[in-house]
């Protein structure tokens, strides 16, 4: 497979929320990239910083209290953090678009679907007539597989079902042919049969329009079915990155391993589920050492004292864990795993 160009590159991103109880690093030195036309999954549990990461890329972090305190977000080589709000407004929707979990709250209940879609088109295509914008909107609704698009365009959001609303959101996001689509838990609020429809649609559009997708989710099943490459986040940090095959076949970080093992599998019955002890830490509560050390069964002294770095363990596979640093590794693999 030929290397595709990196369309979006996030380097050392830090997003901090300044609250009464102190600064909370929601995104803590995060690095990743998205290649052209690729589907990248970002997985993690609540509070791991996956949504704030995506909002940072879009320049939509609520400020105050939030602030991007460091790093770079390169879109086709240009740093988005240096852009003015005016320039960002042009980039949003045109180059990078986003869809959210709850389609009802992202659509305005007072305007028809057509109104809202035309508005988005006319902002970016200033010279277009209203008629042309409307025609484009109908075309997009057809593209996302909505039946009777000509009538639907004059309906209000409440007249549509959850699955149809999410299709409208996708149509609206793709209306300006963006290079990157950020989808933040796009199917979490939907029923499983509707989820299957939406995921299929997203994969089709990804192949057909060559739009790169950054899919943020907590559902490992969704990741396995849709993504090519995966980033696992925990407490504001990227703790593992690999191809989807590697993540499921050979997960390295103890958190990733635990997460995969704790999902009940529909295909066979496990007697007992593996469970990671303890709770997901609140962001900013762990100041020193590996953020996962307190819940990790392989933790040793160093994990509590130092912050592990994200290191490459094999081509295209990175892990933030001391078990894979030089002193933790024996000839047969990481010391702790060999011993156990």
């Amino acid at each position: 497979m030929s290397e595709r160009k990196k369309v979006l590159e996030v380097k050392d991103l830090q997003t901090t929320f300044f609250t009464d109880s102190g600064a909370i690093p929601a995104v803590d030195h995060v690095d990743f990239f998205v290649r052209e036309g690729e589907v990248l999954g970002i997985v993690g549990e609540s509070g791991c910083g996956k949504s704030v990461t995506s909002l940072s890329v879009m320049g939509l972090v609520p400020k105050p209290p939030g602030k991007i305190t460091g790093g770079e977000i390169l879109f086709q080589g240009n740093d988005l953090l240096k852009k003015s709000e005016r320039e960002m407004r042009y980039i949003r929707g045109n180059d990078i678009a986003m869809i959210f979990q709850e389609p009802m709250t992202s659509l305005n209940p007072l305007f028809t679907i057509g109104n809202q879609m035309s508005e988005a088109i006319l902002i970016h295509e200033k010279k277009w007539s209203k008629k042309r914008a409307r025609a484009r909107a109908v075309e997009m609704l057809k593209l996302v597989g909505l039946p009777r698009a000509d009538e639907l365009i004059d309906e209000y959001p409440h007249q549509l079902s959850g699955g149809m609303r999410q299709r409208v959101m996708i149509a609206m996001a793709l209306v300006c042919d963006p290079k990157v689509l950020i989808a933040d838990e796009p199917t979490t609020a939907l029923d499983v049969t509707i989820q299957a429809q939406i995921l299929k649609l997203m994969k089709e559009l990804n192949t057909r329009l060559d739009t790169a997708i950054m899919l943020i989710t907590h559902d490992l099943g969704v990741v396995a079915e849709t993504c090519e490459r995966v980033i696992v986040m925990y407490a504001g940090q990227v703790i593992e990155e690999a191809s989807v095959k590697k993540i499921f076949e050979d997960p390295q970080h103890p958190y990733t391993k635990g997460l995969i093992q704790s999902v009940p599998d529909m295909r066979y019955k496990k007697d007992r589920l593996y469970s990671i002890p303890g709770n997901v830490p609140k962001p900013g509560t762990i100041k020193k050492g590996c953020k996962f050390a307190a819940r990790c069964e392989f933790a040793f002294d160093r994990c509590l004292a130092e912050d592990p770095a994200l290191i490459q363990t094999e081509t295209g596979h990175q892990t933030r864990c001391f078990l894979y640093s030089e002193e933790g590794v024996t000839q047969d693999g990481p010391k702790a795993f060999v011993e156990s």
Partner: protein
Amino acid sequence: MDQKPLLKVEGLKKYFPIKKGLLGRTVGHVKAVDDISFYVNKGETLGIVGESGCGKSTTGRVLMRLLEPTEGTVEFDGKELTSLSSSEMRKMRRDIQMVFQDPYASLNPRHTIGKILEEPLLVHGISDAKERKKSVIKFLEIVGLSAFHAKRYPHQFSGGQRQRIGIARALMTNPKLIIADEPVSALDVSIQAQVLNLMQDLQKEFDLTYIFIAHDLGVVRHISDRVGVMYLGKMVELAPSEQLYATPLHPYTKALLSAVPVPDPDYVKEQVMIDGDIPSPANPPSGCTFHTRCPFKMDICTKVSPQLMEHENGQSVACHLYSEQAGNDIEMKEKEMEGSL
């Protein structure tokens, strides 16, 4: 098993009237639960799955008589629940407890955990103050919390801990049956596994019977002995869980199972895609309610509503494809096809 079931439900219906106009005339009914029958044996877990609006939560509530059933009978431990007076029913609830989805919404934020857990004992007049305090601490420890947590308030706990408290509260009166309505769906994956394991341990320890209502098919398979699948207020399939997942019969069950994303990128599955959305329960389709989305629709499906009937080895299905007449037709067709090949 020849024992008498702990809970036996027959012909249960719950219709919500739709009122319109100045006089509040009833113009129709939302058939949230429409004629379902099942039983639960002592010590087993019956899972109920379905998508939103299928009536699974309403079923749970009607069993507890938190909602009054429109029709049907619920027999629990030899007693007929639907004919009890409300004070008699309140006494019954000592033996039937419920665990809810959102543990934060179901715990009073102004009460300490100690008070919340003591409440069921007070209501049912069980033991004296000293004993009650003791059992609060005992059950806190059983669900994996500590005695000092009794002095804290719900907001001081994480979601997983709150659900443990919700479970402890349900256990306080030493019930026989626990109805758990989406108990883990608000929790993160790693916490979900902890709570599921806890529920399984408690079942063994206290000889509990569960009705486990959820939309997550993986979770339901993990915990259930038998599973019922609901669609638009009806039970469309009911079977031992191994059988249901290995050989689903109803086209809806097949579609539902194939729609679940499997956490294995190499797994190639046969996908049965169904189009469209769930119809409104206020105006369900005629005949089989699934016929509008069913890939195997026949003429009879639009006219006659299929009954839940045992197909084989305890696997029941409500589908005309498995009724005798249709079964013969299908066999004929298959033979024809084989012949032509």
